[in-house]
């Protein structure tokens, strides 16, 4: 039997029951739509995060206190005070770690900033001038904090765009006095709207010298992060190894399991983000896949009804020479056509809803969330839908093929 006529036959079979055919594919449509949305939004999220991480630069190596967190219980590790001035100096020494341009310390405090009656709670970052190169930021108005500020533990502050807006509105801020934890600071610089860099929203931070933060805001002598800038991307792996060896020697650690610090590179971050989004996407996809199975069972039900309704037609076809395979092929193709159409509709709806979701997320997240139409997902969706038709069509098609022609013709 010629394929063109097989397709035509199957199609006219479906057309005879347009309304029911549409209801039948609803389950498949919903399933494929859901999967398309999950994959598209998942890829959007991943690309967004990866872009931000990439903004850190491939030459950045981050040393944080406490061992590599492997679960929620390790959260407190970041409060470990294992990184101090001594460690910083050891890492700055080229005899210990080769290929490092500079080391930038950072401490983080959450504090209330106030300008007269306006108050806002933000992350106050205590750091050194070299952070500008790490985060690719600078003071667009005024100056950034300077080495002198650091040495003198000066009360100078550089404000992110949102923080400035919250405290001063549109009024000029440069040179004005603000209070942080009751201490008076002078606004020396302002950063233009920048958005997310790495895991930090630069617009929502205030930057002060780390010495000031340690002494007056936190009363500590350790750092929360040491940023290392490697001289090249190729040097990163050697820098990581040298950092580990240096700190272990300094802290008398023989067993890497007992490390009181950990090193993160952009590559590590990309990898772990990749794992997280993959796991999340897989989880959500499998939930959506359940609706595909339910849809498949729906297809099987309707196909069984259709086979029984068309018993006479099957009998007639057999009487005029159709072989069992011909009948089987006809109903299988019908099932695949049904789910295939469902798949296409699902892909179109999925793309549409993903696009709408991307628009909404761009509003909510406040950054340039990208709409991603995944060709792979579309092709996979169509394949999965067709396969479901094939799998769930086999039983009804066999039922049809095995009908005896005289019983089929006698059927009322």
């Amino acid at each position, binding site marked *: 039997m010629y394929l063109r006529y097989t397709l035509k036959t199957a199609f006219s079979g479906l057309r005879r029951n347009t309304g029911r055919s549409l209801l039948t594919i609803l389950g498949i449509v919903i399933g494929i739509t859901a999967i398309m949305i999950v994959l598209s939004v998942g890829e959007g999220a991943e690309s967004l995060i990866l872009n931000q991480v990439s903004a850190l630069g491939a030459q950045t190596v981050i040393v944080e206190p406490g061992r590599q967190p492997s679960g929620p219980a390790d959260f407190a590790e970041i409060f470990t005070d294992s990184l101090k001035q001594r460690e910083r100096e050891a890492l700055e020494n080229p005899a210990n770690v080769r290929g490092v341009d500079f080391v930038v310390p950072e401490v983080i405090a959450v504090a209330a900033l106030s300008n007269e009656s306006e108050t806002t709670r933000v992350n106050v970052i205590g750091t050194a001038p070299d952070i500008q190169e790490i985060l690719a930021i600078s003071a667009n108005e005024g100056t950034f904090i300077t080495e002198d500020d650091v040495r003198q533990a000066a009360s100078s502050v550089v404000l992110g765009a949102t923080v400035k807006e919250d405290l001063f509105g549109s009024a000029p801020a440069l040179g004005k006095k603000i209070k942080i934890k009751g201490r008076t600071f002078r606004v020396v610089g302002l950063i233009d709207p920048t958005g997310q860099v790495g895991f930090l929203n630069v617009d929502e931070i205030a930057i002060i010298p780390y010495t000031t933060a340690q002494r007056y805001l936190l009363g500590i002598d350790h750092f929360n992060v040491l940023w290392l800038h490697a001289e090249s991307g190729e040097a990163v792996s050697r820098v990581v190894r040298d950092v580990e060896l240096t700190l272990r020697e300094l802290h008398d650690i023989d067993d890497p399991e007992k490390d009181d610090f950990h090193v993160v590179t952009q590559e590590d971050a990309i990898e772990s983000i990749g794992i997280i989004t993959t796991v999340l996407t897989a989880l959500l996809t499998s939930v959506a896949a359940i609706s595909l199975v339910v849809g498949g069972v729906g297809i099987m039900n309707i196909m069984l009804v259709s086979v029984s309704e068309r018993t006479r037609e099957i009998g007639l076809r057999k*009487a005029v020479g159709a072989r069992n395979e011909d009948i089987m092929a006809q109903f299988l193709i019908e099932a695949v056509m049904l789910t295939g159409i469902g798949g296409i509709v699902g892909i179109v709806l999925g793309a549409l809803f993903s696009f709408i979701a991307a628009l909404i997320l761009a509003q909510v997240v406040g950054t340039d969330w990208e709409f991603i139409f995944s060709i792979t997902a579309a092709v996979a969706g169509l394949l999965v839908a067709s396969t479901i038709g094939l799998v769930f069509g086999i039983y009804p098609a066999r039922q049809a093929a095995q009908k005896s022609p005289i019983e089929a013709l006698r059927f009322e």
Partner: protein
Amino acid sequence: MALIELTNLEKVYRQGEVETRALRGVSFSVEKGEFVAIMGPSGSGKSTLLHILGFLDPPTGGEYLFQGRSAVSYGEDEISHIRNRKLGFVFQAFNLLPRTTVLDNVMLPLLYSDVPEREWKQKATKAVEAVGLSHRIHHEPAQLSGGEKQRVAIARALVTDPEVIFADEPTGNLDSKSGKAIMEILQELNDKQGHTIILITHETYTAEHAGRIIRIKDGLVESDRLVEERRRADTDSLLK
């Protein structure tokens, strides 16, 4: 060699413990080019006989030779091939595909044949012409009268140019005028084109259009004789 040769043909239906002997040893033969009417009251076994002759149901005993070869020796695909190329069926209930044009209905057997696709349309058109329905060729069954539907069914049976046409009460659902038109076509196929026709009916009037009448009763052949005064459907006169 006879086209069809039956020897002691039996058919027993078993439903649980109950056995129904539909055919209890039927023997006769049909030569190529004959027009045979099989008559009998309902329950006589005439439909069962037609199903066996038409390869729609296997016999349970005796022997059925079709073109000299035993019917039980054919495999499933060979049986499909025989139904497709050597046999044509006309049913009482027409059995046309709904929402499918006359042309496509007539083309149906060709879909399952080895006839090359480019010849389908021409063959189907010719068959539709032969039953005088050229003006209805793009109509759907719902737009046709009963008589016209049955003519489409005859065209469908004809399209593969089969050895035998089986007609199972073809006039049963028709008024007498349409019925007569159907019998006229069947007679013409038999006379002019030499098609072998086996007609099942319970009406003597219809049966008398055939050249030979085999009466079946209780699963046995009651009588088998030639029609002496054959009816002509075209003139409604008796052929002397």
